[in-house]
């Protein structure tokens, strides 16, 4: 039953469910043969063992199944430009992003669900939403001045904007106080003085640093949009992702809140969550453009990406670059590097993969080539044959 649990995705997201139940006809046949009290777990074992033929090239079939579909994807990708809708990368670029396990994805998005006591009220939800949006110093200033003579950066605060955000100069002062900068607020001006600065370039750098200081909200969350569900509950969709900080909030329902950043989810929630997220994202990306790829192919790829506990991409720096076989690696990309390293570390290629056996014109260990049959010369077959020959 544990293995089955892995097949399921988080309950909230889950339109994806893979049925691992034994078909009725097998149960019936089993019971007919071994009686009503027969052990169903034994049947399950048998059933799971016979799901895939030994030697089936599941990897190649998965690659072909997704690869064929994604050739159509390239042409169909469309962009919707809108103001109130958060645009997420879709189509082939998104697939590439997931399979490469990119550290910084182009459109990180979070879906924040709230605990039932908050979710019903629009006011409460929108309060939370405005609290989590990150406000930087750069967002509240109207102009700035750089003076090499005074060795200072002066930022003019836009008073209306701070009022809008519900901030005050005191908050800004306290935030600046936490940094190591020599800063003070004079009326509506933030003045930062750094005596060590000797060039305009460094002053600009200093300015960029100050502008990037977070005043309120959660870092990297740039926008939040309320969404109303059918049952009149609200949830928040944000641009920018910071799962770790969001989950610390009391109002947030930790069991359902999720981001679309696979690497981040793997760091915060663990590898199983990341695996499920990969499956979910790939499946939905394909589904959105009307392509139906069997879930099991995606399962396989997600499993391969997550098998060693961290999310690894497929490609030169991921799975393909870590193949055991020297020749398989060399035939994929940068052959020189792999061959030289192999010679330095005295690597041995067992010829147990597809690529290297193709290279040397040997039978590949897949399908009919996976089985090696050796007939014992003194086996029963030969004995009978010998006996027959002797008689004649």
């Amino acid at each position, binding site marked *: 039953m544990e293995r089955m649990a892995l097949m399921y995705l988080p309950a909230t997201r889950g339109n994806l469910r893979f049925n691992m139940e034994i078909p009725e006809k097998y149960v019936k046949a089993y019971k007919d043969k071994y009686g009503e009290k027969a052990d169903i777990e034994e049947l399950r074992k048998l059933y799971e063992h016979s799901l895939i*033929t030994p*030697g*089936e*090239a599941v990897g*190649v*079939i998965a*690659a*072909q199944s997704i690869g064929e579909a994604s050739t159509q994807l390239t042409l169909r990708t469309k962009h919707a430009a809108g103001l109130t809708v958060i645009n997420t990368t879709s189509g082939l670029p998104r697939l590439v992003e997931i399979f490469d396990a990119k550290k910084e994805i182009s459109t990180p998005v979070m879906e924040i669900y709230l605990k039932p006591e908050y979710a019903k009220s629009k006011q409460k939800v929108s309060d939370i939403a405005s609290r989590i949006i990150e406000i930087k110093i750069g967002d509240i200033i109207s102009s700035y001045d750089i003076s090499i003579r005074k060795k200072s950066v002066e930022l003019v605060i836009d008073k209306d904007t701070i009022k809008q955000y519900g901030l005050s100069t005191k908050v800004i002062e306290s935030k600046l106080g936490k940094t190591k900068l020599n800063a003070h607020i004079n009326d509506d001006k933030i003045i930062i003085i750094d005596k060590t600065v000797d060039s305009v370039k460094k002053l600009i750098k200093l300015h960029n640093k100050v502008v990037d200081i977070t005043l309120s909200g959660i870092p990297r969350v740039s926008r939040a949009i309320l969404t109303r569900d059918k049952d009149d509950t609200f949830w928040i969709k944000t641009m920018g992702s910071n799962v770790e900080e969001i989950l610390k909030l009391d109002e947030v329902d930790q069991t359902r809140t999720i981001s679309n950043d696979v690497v981040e989810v793997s760091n915060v929630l663990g590898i199983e969550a990341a695996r499920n997220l990969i499956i979910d994202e790939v499946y939905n990306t394909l589904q959105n453009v009307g392509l139906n790829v069997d879930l099991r192919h995606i399962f396989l790829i997600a499993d391969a990406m997550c098998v060693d506990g961290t999310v690894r991409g497929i490609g030169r720096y991921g799975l393909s670059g870590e193949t055991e076989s020297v020749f398989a690696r060399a035939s994929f990309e940068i052959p020189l590097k792999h*061959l*030289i390293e*192999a*010679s330095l570390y005295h690597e*041995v290629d067992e010829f147990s993969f*597809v690529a290297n056996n*193709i*290279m*040397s*014109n*040997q*039978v*590949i*260990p*897949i*399908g*009919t*080539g*996976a089985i*090696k049959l*050796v007939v014992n010369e003194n086996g029963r077959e030969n004995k009978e044959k010998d006996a027959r020959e002797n008689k004649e």
Partner: protein
Amino acid sequence: MSFVFLNGVLSGQIEEPRKLVKNLITDRRSGKLPSSLNVRYRKETDTVVINTDGGRLVRALIVVKNGKPMVTKEDVSLLSDGHITWGDLVKDGKIEYLDADEEEDAYVALSEEELTAEHTHMEITPLSIFGTQVAMLPFVNHSNAHRNVTAVKSVQQGVGIYSNNYLIRMDNDSMVAVDQQVPIVKTKMYDDPAFNSHVFGQNIVVAVVSYLGYNMDDAVIINKASVDRGLFRSMFFRPYKIEETRYIGGQSDKIIIPDKDVIGYRSEDAYQFLDEDGIVFPSVEVDSGDVLIGRVSPPRFISSIDKFRLGVQKQIETSVECRTGESGTVDNVFLTSTFDGNKYVSVKVRQDRRVEIGDKFGSRSGQKGVVGMLLNEEDMPFTYSGITPDLIFSPYSLPSRMSMSYLLELIAGKVGALGGRHVDGTPFTGESEEELRNELKSYGFRENGVETMYNGITGEEMKVRIFVGDMMYIRLKHFVANKIQWRSRGPIQLLTRQPTEGKSKSGGLRLGEMEKDCFVAYGAALALKERFDSDKISIPVCSKCGLTAVYNVRKKTGYCQIDGEDAPIKLIEVSASFKILLDELKAVGIYPKILLGKKV
């Protein structure tokens, strides 16, 4: 204040640019300024651009004033009677030439009916909005624009008479069609005599019907009897060119019948058609492998052994033979000398190309297809009057493509054939569908062009009326005879021992990466291995050091260059390309040690 540019050079400033433009145009129309001058005010850059230089594309348009064309009916009749000339109209400012710049400010009407007060110009004929090639397609205004583009593309590939002196020309891979016709359905463009001497295509009887399944998916069925009578027959010319090059050191090639002691001498049979001068004589039937021009060349490298050998150096054979898979009649032998004074010979072989299954045909409406069947005349469907079509076209090619010009040409062709006249299919101004239908009716046919037809095999009447008529079809240059290629065994590459690539080298078809993946996915491991056995070799390996050893196959003994005679040598089966990889690894200093396992 705007700037004035004359031929791209800043020449001055002016307060009222629009007035300048207006004045210049009036002066041009009155003949004070040359008709090739064009002027335009560019609003976005606030400049006046005046162009008088050569090399601009210009277009003749009728000048329109107050919604009335300047060229009147009187002018037209005077022009057709020869009392005035085109030049007079231009001089009078009734017709003027606009370049691309001035065209931006013009508002041009297509026809007189759509003229309004805003219009500045009118097209002389609506046909002039098309290029030469589109204007040669009948009824293009009825078809989808994309179809017309396709139609032009396929007409360009048509085999016709590309040049009237083709007999003495030596073009590479030229094709000339025999017995070509001027189309029944013409456009105005065909009035140019040049198009009558460079004809392409033939007027044939076409029936639109699905028949025997041999014309599905854009295939066509062609009447075999028509082909026997010479329908779409064409000639294919292949020139073979050779030069008697002179080399440094006084040596040179020689165009002669090679001697038997020449390196690379073919059989005597191969040289049988050569004349005394070493060149094949005209009107000889040659087959692939026959030598057309005999030539011997001095050896490329003078080897050290030859230096001490007495007698004449051996020459190499460098003759030109008829290409593999091709044959034909020697049409023409051409002898001259090059700029360097070398003897230059070219021989042209002519091949007769009958229509065969797989040849490509197209109409002038973007409907092209490949011959799926050459059907005997007795099996072709026939009409009540006994007409059998030359070609059967599939009706399923029509609805999705909406090439209405195909249907119109078919009816128009029928009208033309019955009335013994050419039909004007010029876009916009040609004969209308209604006229054609009425005329067809007057000949005693159904006005929509359908006729009762009978199945040629069973003789049964077909349940539906078949759309049948005459139209022009063009044989396209893609002949199967030029493309067919096969190989079971054949030449291999020297280095990799893999089969060569390409038709000319009689190469194999590559089983590529993705095709390989299909074998893997299917699990056909042994079949896949066999596919890649084309460069299979067995190499001796020393089981001690794991490097390739030396092996005498006949004596079944070998030795390792490192471990000597005693080391056990085993033969392993690998691809030649893998052996090269091992050799190259050794060359860069990596030791690829082969560990031999148990034989399974």
